[in-house]
């Protein structure tokens, strides 16, 4: 759930989503769900001439499974917090595994 929580902190920020079919869409992140499906608003497609069907589309829902990369603004990432959260989650999982064994 870490990445889901992480992306939730980026809601409202400018992101660029690159899909596995090479389509890259820039816009404002509106929401993200547990599958990392994302919704973005005020979209702008990179290399628009190649994708004329996308021009009249202003906001869209992208299925998480077709995303290759999400580019995020570096200044919006709290790296120490992310590191801490990663370790905490790993520790928690270890702890739970021990309980399950016992």
């Amino acid at each position, binding site marked *: *759930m870490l990445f889901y929580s992480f992306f*939730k902190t980026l809601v409202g920020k400018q992101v660029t989503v690159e*899909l*596995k*079919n*090479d*389509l890259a869409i820039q816009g404002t992140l509106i*929401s*993200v*769900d*547990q*599958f990392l*499906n994302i*919704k973005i608003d005020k*979209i702008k497609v990179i290399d628009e001439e190649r994708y*004329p*069907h*996308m*021009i*009249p*589309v*202003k*906001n*869209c*829902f*992208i*299925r998480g*499974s*077709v995303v290759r990369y999400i580019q995020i603004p570096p200044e919006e990432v709290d790296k120490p917090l992310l590191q801490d959260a990663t370790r905490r989650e790993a520790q928690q999982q270890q702890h739970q595994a021990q309980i399950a064994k016992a």
Partner: protein
Amino acid sequence: MNNLNLENFFTTGQSLQPYLDKDLLVVLRDGRKLLGILRSYDQFANLVLQDTIERIYVNNSFGDIERGIYIVRGENVVLLGEVDKDAEDDLDLQELPIEQILQMQKEEADEKARKEKIRLQLLHKQGFSVDFVETDMY
């Protein structure tokens, strides 16, 4: 799972709700573009579209095929977006009869296949392995 806070848990259920009964563009993994009204969906993004048309784009022209009701299995969905009708009318695209568009699409595909064949032949001459793998990039 006891510390999950379900209050602020986004689900596909909530995120597709605003798209219900709207005119949408749906892009599928095989490159098809469907235009229709979203009537139902679930958490996998399985969709039911009504009054669907499939629109085929070739260069600066397009053609429509009427398809009716569509049920799309979620795994095939790439994205769906609301279509702004005014922006659509402003587009510098020409609508052509579907037979002509299909012919153009075929020619484009043939040309692409021909170029790919030449590329593979050249690579083969250079000693590269050219096992042909058909991939849709997903």
